[in-house]
């Protein structure tokens, strides 16, 4: 493919791809929840959240903090969480990431993983607490396998998002 746009259509396609890929991949990850997997224990990571923070950490300029609201709304509807759960948790995470960006000048792979780990821990704890308020009296320890699995699958998700980002910006 030529690096110079040959037509208006090429330009339109590239710009659409550049803008829509992050949103569409996050929505697709949220839709993983409707896969026909029936389990008795929480084990599988919340891929929508992982993809979301992977995009946010890779491209801080991509989304303003309020972009998490509609994405969280979609995730709540698909996953059957109480409405507002992902909306609140995701937006608070984005605001926290903005604060971190203000304070921390240098970032690398390990700091990104650290911030992602903190975000994942916050996400699990907040979701568990909302469940507790909603009458689900469960032990937090049952979420540990899922939490550990999420922490270790973040680099993998980040790698996939990086590949998507390269494809998104390629000409």
């Amino acid at each position, binding site marked *: 493919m030529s690096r110079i746009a040959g037509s208006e259509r090429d330009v339109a396609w590239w710009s659409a791809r550049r803008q829509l890929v992050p949103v569409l991949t996050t929505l697709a990850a949220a839709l993983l*929840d409707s896969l026909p997997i029936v*389990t008795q224990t929480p084990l599988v*990571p919340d891929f929508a959240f992982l993809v979301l923070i992977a995009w946010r950490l890779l491209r801080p300029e991509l989304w303003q903090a309020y972009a998490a609201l509609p994405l969280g709304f979609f995730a709540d509807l698909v996953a*059957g*969480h109480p409405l507002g759960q992902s909306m609140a948790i995701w937006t608070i995470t984005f605001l926290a990431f903005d604060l971190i960006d203000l304070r921390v000048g240098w*970032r690398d792979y390990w700091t990104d993983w650290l911030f992602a780990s903190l975000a994942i821990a916050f996400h699990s704890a907040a979701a568990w607490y909302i469940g507790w308020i*909603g*009458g689900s009296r469960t032990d937090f320890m049952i979420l540990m396998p899922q939490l550990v699995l999420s922490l270790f699958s973040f680099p993998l998700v980040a790698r996939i998002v990086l590949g998507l980002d390269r494809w998104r910006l390629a000409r």
Partner: protein
Amino acid sequence: MAPPSTRRPGFSRRAQYGLFLGYVVAVAGVLFALMLLTLSVIDPRGFGALKGAALDATSPVSSAGRGIVNFFGGIGSTVGNYFNAGAQNDDLKRQLAATRRKIVEARATELENQRLKAMLKLSETVGDEVTVTRVVGSSFDSSRRLATLSVGSGAGVAPGQPVRSPEGLIGRVIETGRWASRVLLVSDGASSVPVRLVRDGTPAIAQGLGDGSIDLKTLEVGKNPFRRGDILVTSGVGGVYPPNVPVAVVVRVERERTTARPLADPATVDFAMVLRPFQPVADQPLSQATSEALQGAAQ
């Protein structure tokens, strides 16, 4: 690499205001989301129509893929069976012997039961099912234990109806769409089912633990009445679950803590029956005659 400084958009007033406005919207959005969340927690059925529509929209994916997942899950367990054949054979022989003994006992009990029922002229209300369906999905990434059924209000399913499989109780319906509905499993932390011990009728509450097991609480203090392998059935108290549906088998007994495993594993059950609530009459307002009689008694 130092990140590009996106938080200081330069000297443009317009860009600065835009950024500030973004934060105002985000914080307002968080507050709005928390408000929605409060509403959802106070009234879990509040956004029923919206969530039902979302359920409907995603149900084709769940329903269509279920067969494939069953196929692959089947391969896994078949391979496992091959490796465990010897141990399984021993186990099965032991179980068979135990079952034979039980059958003899059960026949005797059945006869006695028939005799007593005839004496009391009791008639059991069975076959009160709304519809038969399949479990097609579940919440596998949160601390809640919810499953999705492939029928909804179109087939007469309504929130509050109990769901069972031939093996035992699955849970109860909490949300319905037109073609799909969501079930609170008995292993969810918010589910508590009144049960009784089959062996001697001791009443208990089966409270889900969220990790696929159930905690049993007796209603009286003292010695723990449960033994490993005990079967629990619903008692019918509370009027949601019909009596005598198998619920769980006790797997571990510690001093005060009894853990049981649900008999119906939603991952492997083939069919789920949606039943009518056992005594819906209990929720309804008093009839004219009853309230008049009560007033008369008060005067």
